[in-house]
């Protein structure tokens, strides 16, 4: 019944079929089903034993997820040891150390079933085609208009910063105010005043060019971990602090 868990590895002329468990939950559920175990009453010792065998063999383990498989092994072992503790009276249902794991397994199973339904719907939908481009119309349309998600908004800001950062170091070589001078100036200011307000500091620059240089110096100093930028209140102000232990400021090999 674990057809879903079968991944087919195809190589040139022949087929090899191996079951690969994508994550620890997959493997656990496979073992429980294979042994026809009641999920609410898992014999932890036996399951742990089996689980470790699979883990040791590695063939059926998604190796990208090895750490998570190990984490589950640790959890199983800790549950096992809790069950072994001598107790004056038997545990109630609520105190059963297996309980949280059982709840997780049940929920995971439900989600797997739900996802197989989604998969069926996907199959149906994939046979129906929708246009991705609006038809030509005389009423015309502005090109390049998009519906934006919050993620895109954040991403575009991030990419903007990155782009500026790389552009800058290419275009500003040989400027009057050198980057290193500016960096030294920033560090000097930081040593005196403890912290700088990122935007405020940029605003204090004489020219746009200088503001740009200051901006990229700060980015560079942050990147090379000389200073640290902290947002105390999200997006209201960014404060820059000098790190206590810091490497030497980066050098760009231009005359100071």
């Amino acid at each position, binding site marked *: 019944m674990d057809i879903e868990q079968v991944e087919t590895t195809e190589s040139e002329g022949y087929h090899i079929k191996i079951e690969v468990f994508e994550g620890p*939950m997959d493997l656990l559920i496979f073992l429980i089903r294979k042994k026809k175990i009641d999920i609410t009453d898992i014999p932890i010792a036996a399951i742990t034993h089996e689980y470790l065998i699979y883990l040791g063999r590695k063939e059926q383990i998604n190796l990208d997820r090895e750490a*998570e498989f190990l984490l589950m092994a640790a959890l199983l072992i800790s549950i096992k040891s809790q069950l072994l503790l001598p107790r004056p009276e038997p545990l109630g249902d609520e105190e059963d150390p297996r309980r949280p794991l059982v709840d997780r397994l049940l929920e995971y199973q439900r*989600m797997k079933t*739900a*996802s197989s339904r*989604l998969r069926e719907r996907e199959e149906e939908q994939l046979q129906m085609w929708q246009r991705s481009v609006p038809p030509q*119309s005389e009423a015309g349309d502005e090109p390049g208009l998009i519906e934006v998600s919050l993620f895109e908004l954040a991403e575009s800001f991030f990419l903007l910063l990155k782009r500026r950062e790389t552009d800058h170091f290419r275009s500003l070589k040989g400027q009057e105010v050198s980057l290193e001078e500016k960096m030294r100036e920033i560090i000097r200011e930081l040593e005196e005043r403890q912290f700088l307000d990122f935007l405020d500091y940029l605003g204090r620059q004489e020219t746009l060019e200088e503001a740009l240089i200051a901006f990229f110096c700060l980015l560079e100093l942050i990147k090379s971990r000389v200073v640290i930028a902290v947002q105390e209140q999200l997006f209201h102000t960014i404060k820059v602090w000098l790190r206590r232990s810091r490497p030497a400021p980066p050098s760009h090999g231009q005359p100071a």
Partner: protein
Amino acid sequence: MDSQLKDILEALIFISVEPLTLDRIKEVLADTPEEELRRALDELAQEYGRPGRGMRLQSAAGGYLFSTKSECDPWVRRLLQIERKSRLSRAAVETLAVIAYHQPATQAEIQAIRGVDSSYTVHTLLEKKLVKISGRKKAPGSPLLYKTTDRFLTYFGLNDLSELPSVEEVAKMLEEEEQHAEK
């Protein structure tokens, strides 16, 4: 007059790439009573449901859109020279199911259910616009919350989230699956 209304609706749905919602239609045809609109839409859907049409009027994400009939799939693929439309990865569908049933959900919640780190999968789902960020959870670290989008509904041909099998239905399916497996 009624037939002209149907014409207009057909034209409007035709030029839309995303499902055209009733709200949008009402904005465009502000003078027409909603009831009349609904009636015309129903008629249109019926017409497209008849045999001898290559398209159908789909109702998805609370809107209407045309799509080709599944019977025409082989020829459409030949025309577009596409072997097969690519499916989502297993991890992606699983993560979508978790978000759909637990929304709004944080990365940590998704990870707790799936047992594996899901940040990469969530990111690809964001890029495919199948999920979106819907805010932050009031919890330590204020983690981002994720929700499914209208595109998610359209992708799976759902009108709204209530068309997903309920948790009880899923539990029942699961039981059936297990009984099946025991045989």
